[in-house]
């Protein structure tokens, strides 16, 4: 080191190797903040502003409309059915993939990711092709008085397909990191497989499971493409919140459309708040169980 830099070094603090200069740090934070404001906060504020454009009472009146209420009820029902199912499927898939060695494992993981890469509209069309009135299975089911397409079962199938990866994707890395030793220990201590799952596996994955379920729930309530293909968008019967919002918007009923959109956004915000509240409440536990 030359004398000049040494003299400078006595007055300035030494930076660690991975630390950026203050200027770079501020610029990076600034860019992230601007991006967030444009992409996330502005649209969110716009939705609420549009909803309340004619005042609070107009927004509430549009929500009290029977079609809007039916849409909210249907969306909540769909989420209440498909989220627990996909939580169960996700746990089963993650368990199978991480606790056993078998051929075709990589293929199975790819298959779980498939709903992420397939366009939801294509997924919806596949369900129509499989279970539509003109198909073999669909025709028979309709004759039995149990239609799939343009009815609730079709919407549930589409939602299940689209939201399938969320829980499994959250769980697989956590379960791989934790390994099998704790489960094996429980077995050597005389616990049955079932007991091992409830007392050892589940407590260890509960946080990842919660994140997966929350993401799955948000997507189940918000899914548009696949649902709009299979549901037929019959008002009061098969129109969910996202499809109803689109129809209202197409009809230039912007207060009604944005009021319903605001409710949907609020539902998502509530799940996020719930997650944050749980994290704060169990912060010590999180720290204790995540790492040794």
């Amino acid at each position: 080191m030359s004398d000049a830099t040494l003299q400078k070094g006595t007055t300035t603090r030494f930076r660690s190797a991975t630390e950026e200069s203050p200027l770079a740090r501020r610029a990076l934070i600034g860019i992230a903040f601007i991006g967030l404001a444009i992409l996330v906060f502005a649209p969110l504020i716009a939705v609420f502003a549009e909803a309340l454009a004619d005042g609070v009472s107009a927004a509430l009146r549009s929500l009290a409309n029977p079609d809007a209420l039916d849409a909210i009820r249907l969306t909540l029902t769909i989420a209440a059915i498909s989220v627990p199912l996909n939580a169960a499927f996700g746990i089963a898939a993650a368990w199978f993939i991480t606790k056993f060695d078998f051929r075709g494992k990589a293929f199975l993981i790819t298959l779980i990711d498939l709903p992420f890469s397939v366009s939801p509209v294509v997924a919806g069309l596949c369900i129509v092709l499989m279970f539509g009135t003109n198909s073999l299975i669909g025709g028979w089911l309709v004759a039995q008085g149990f239609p799939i397409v343009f009815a609730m079962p079709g919407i549930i199938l589409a939602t299940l397909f689209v939201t399938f990866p969320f829980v499994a994707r959250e769980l697989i890395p956590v379960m791989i990191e934790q390994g099998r030793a704790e489960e094996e220990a429980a077995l050597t201590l005389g616990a049955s497989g079932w007991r091992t799952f409830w007392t050892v596996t589940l407590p260890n994955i509960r946080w990842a499971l919660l994140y997966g379920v929350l993401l799955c729930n948000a997507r189940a309530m918000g899914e548009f493409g696949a649902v709009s293909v299979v549901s037929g968008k019959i008002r009061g019967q098969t129109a969910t919140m996202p499809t109803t919002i689109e129809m209202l918007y197409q009809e230039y009923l912007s207060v009604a459309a944005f009021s319903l959109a605001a409710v949907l956004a609020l539902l998502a915000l509530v799940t996020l708040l719930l997650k944050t509240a749980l994290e704060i409440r169990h912060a010590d536990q999180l720290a204790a169980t995540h790492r040794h």
Partner: protein
Amino acid sequence: MHIEIDEISKQFGVTAALHPVSLSIPSGALVALLGPSGSGKTTLLRILGGLEFPTSGRVLFDGQDATGLTVQERRAGFVFQSYALFRHMTVFDNIAYGLNARPRASRPTKAEISRRVTKLLELIQLPEIGGRFPSQLSGGQRQRVALARALAIEPRMLLLDEPFGALDAKVRKELRQGLRDIHDETGLTTVFVTHDQEEAMELADLVVVMSMGRIEQVGKPQDIRARPATDFVRDFVTA
């Protein structure tokens, strides 16, 4: 309990982890399975514990065929390499786990479980740590808790996979003596896996030297030192 290993082999796909091996472990012995990694020693231990099933051959406990017994039926106290303590449970609940897992009919009362856990905590000389979580313990403490948890089920044998592997040299020496004391006190047939020849020679009554899925030599430590049966054993124990 006397353990008889009769022509046990184990294949993982196309690779043979164990060629047919036979071994007789007398009741109450303290036995070391010694060998480099990949020698098949851990596989053999896991087969004894019922965590792995042999491709061929039999395991006999006190003369009875135990090959088909499930891991739960074996009642082997197993101590895992990284201890595998339940991280979300206190030390007390970890040790009590095996007792709580028993079917209702044979499960001890809450008071009895508490009494036994307290006794085990005294046995491992850590009477004060029942309320702590595994993440709050040192490596040596974790190892002793794992040992207490394995002993709580009143096992028929004690199986330990590299029990001192993750510890520094000083703690290692202490805990070696600790294991010897617990073995002598309980009289349990004890098998431990190690790659450290000094550890095997100092602690075990009987040393089983393994390499490449085969047993090279079985004998008392001093006999193996004095008369190594193969070149591999000579190289390994003098290293």
